[in-house]
């Protein structure tokens, strides 16, 4: 019992020794060097550019679109999600490889900070930075309120989703940063993986659904199909489900595209209500070669709301990535240590014998 308590105590101490100094150092560093303000400027310029471009395009037409606020909101939230996902991956991808390149890595490993503490500290620092970026985007999102029609709850959920995207993809970037020695390699691999998860999963899903022999243009002959689980690794489908009006059959073009890519035009979910009921509906004339009909109550994980599923998958992705990162930064590989321990014990036995 004492031994277990001691192990826990050591674990907690190592975690704190890594987490606290790493978090404060990273946050201090981001506010001091030129990269932080530059990144923030580019980020806000892209978001602001989206608003200006949309309003300019909208002002050119003679007719006024009634849903202009909702469409602008959809565009902004999508851009925010992409930006936060990419920034999280890039920022985290330089976290550990940067230590190696700066030659501060060894100095860190000989401290009493545990490997998990170092990794968690790095990850949490990027999480705090993401939170800062999300808050910085609020004034831009506020433009939507000039046009009205957007409940505050939706904005909060969308921001939460963007942050969740950043958490998972940030941890993924950190794992690549621990695996690859060079920051450049880690950044490239992270971005490819992140965009693969965001869009690749949807494209694969669309191809799989289109290639399904059971799916036909005839709604009578097509059975109900549950969308593949891997599409929930992408925030796009979940984002589509939390956009206002998606529950009533798609409002924005973004919502419609996302749903179509994910598994059919009728895949709508009442995620906002927290229901676990997944409704498959649609039919001919939807513009997509599927014919989902009727409704079906799906039980288990498949029946979870997209937001819940996305949260679960991002959490699992983050957990797995952090474990990989912790393992990868360990200079003493466990199997080599095990061999060395055995050798050491044998040697001690020989000496005493």
């Amino acid at each position, binding site marked *: 019992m004492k031994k277990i308590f001691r192990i826990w105590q*050591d674990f907690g*101490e190592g975690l*704190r*020794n*890594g987490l*606290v*100094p*790493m978090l*404060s*150092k990273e946050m*201090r*560093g981001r506010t*001091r*060097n030129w990269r932080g303000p530059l990144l923030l400027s580019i980020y806000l310029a892209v978001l602001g550019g989206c608003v200006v471009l949309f309003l300019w395009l909208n002002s050119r037409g003679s007719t006024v679109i009634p849903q202009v606020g909702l469409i602008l909101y959809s565009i902004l939230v999508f851009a925010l999600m992409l930006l936060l996902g990419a920034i999280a991956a890039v920022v985290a991808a330089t976290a550990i490889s940067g230590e190696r390149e*700066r*030659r*501060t890595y*060894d*100095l*860190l*490993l*000989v*401290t*009493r*900070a545990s490997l998990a503490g170092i990794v968690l500290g790095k990850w949490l620092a990027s999480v705090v930075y993401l939170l800062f970026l999300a808050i910085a985007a609020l004034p831009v999102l506020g433009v939507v309120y000039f046009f009205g029609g957007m409940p505050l709850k939706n904005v909060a959920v969308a921001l939460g989703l963007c942050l969740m995207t950043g958490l998972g993809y940030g941890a993924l970037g950190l794992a690549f940063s621990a695996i690859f020695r060079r920051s450049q390699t880690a950044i490239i691999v992270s971005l490819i993986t992140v965009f693969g998860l965001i869009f690749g999963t949807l494209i694969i899903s669309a191809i799989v659904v289109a290639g399904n022999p059971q799916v036909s243009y005839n709604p009578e002959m097509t059975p109900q199909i549950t969308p593949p689980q891997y599409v929930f690794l992408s925030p796009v489908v979940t984002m589509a489900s939390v956009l206002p009006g998606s529950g009533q059959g798609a409002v924005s073009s973004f919502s419609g595209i996302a749903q179509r890519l994910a598994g059919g035009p009728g895949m709508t979910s009442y995620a906002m209500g927290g229901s676990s009921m997944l409704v498959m509906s649609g039919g001919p004339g939807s513009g997509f070669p599927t014919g989902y009909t009727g409704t079906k109550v799906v039980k288990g994980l498949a029946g979870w709301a997209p937001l819940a599923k996305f949260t679960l998958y991002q959490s699992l992705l983050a957990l797995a990535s952090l474990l990989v990162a912790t393992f990868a930064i360990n*200079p*003493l*590989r466990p199997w*080599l*240590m095990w061999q*060395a*321990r055995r*050798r*050491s014990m044998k*040697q001690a036995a020989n000496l005493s014998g």
Partner: protein
Amino acid sequence: MIMTRQLQKHYGRVQALDGLEIEVPDGAIYGFIGQNGAGKTTTLRILAGLLVPDGGSAEVAGYDVVCNPRAVRNILGYMPDFFGVYDDLRVGEYLLFYAAAHGIRRQAAQKLRDDLLELVELADKRDEFVDSLSRGMQQRLCLARALVHDPQVLLLDEPASGLDPVARVEMREILKELRRLGKTILISSHILSELADLCTHIGMIADGRLVRQGPLLQMVEASQLQKIMLRCHGDAAPAVKVLECWPGVTALQTVNDRIELQLAGGAQEAAALLKELVLAGAAVAHYSIQEHTLEDAFMQLARG
């Protein structure tokens, strides 16, 4: 305090350490000498818990570096040969960061920071950014970082490399102060004159194996060769003729009117040579036996 037994390490086909056995007594300053690629840095990295040996074992204060790396880290300070600094931290913050990573509470850490900066003579640089410091100052700061948790043992890998003469003298003075504080220091260097001035013990390594180790004086005196310098008045040819034929004479060279050589044996052999030179008609104006240096001992061993 530090002991390795049959330590082995290879990188692919390259055998970096081949049964290395060193023993560093408590409170000693152990100079670890060897040519580039001899295995010094590999040994230090194994002792610091940054590498796993392929064979053998290493202990620091009785703790096996593989079986008990955490305990070793608590009592060991490590300064690598090449290291970086966080360019966005100030000198004081840099030390506080490592103090926190060693689990030292903030208040104690602040006191420690001031003491350490005083020790390495960087107290007036406390609020400056680390990257604005000169190389010598960064070396001293890194040494202060290695001392932040008050370790019993220090592993210093080429601490004076890349430093100008003034910075080297400053570094040497700090190490002497640490010796007075009772730290056991394992220092790898190829600047032998500095080690001779600083170390109590010496270990010579070649091709991953220990060639010789022991107290400094013993190591220097173990050299079987003595360096002789002589100067002739007028023609030096008779002297050179004698020296070329004299058994035990090596490394004979003439620089202007000065003749330098190495002679095997002791004072008796040196006296016999002088007698022979005079008998051969050489006008010897100056004849001196130079003191053994660590460099001589190392060069003798390096040449086999």
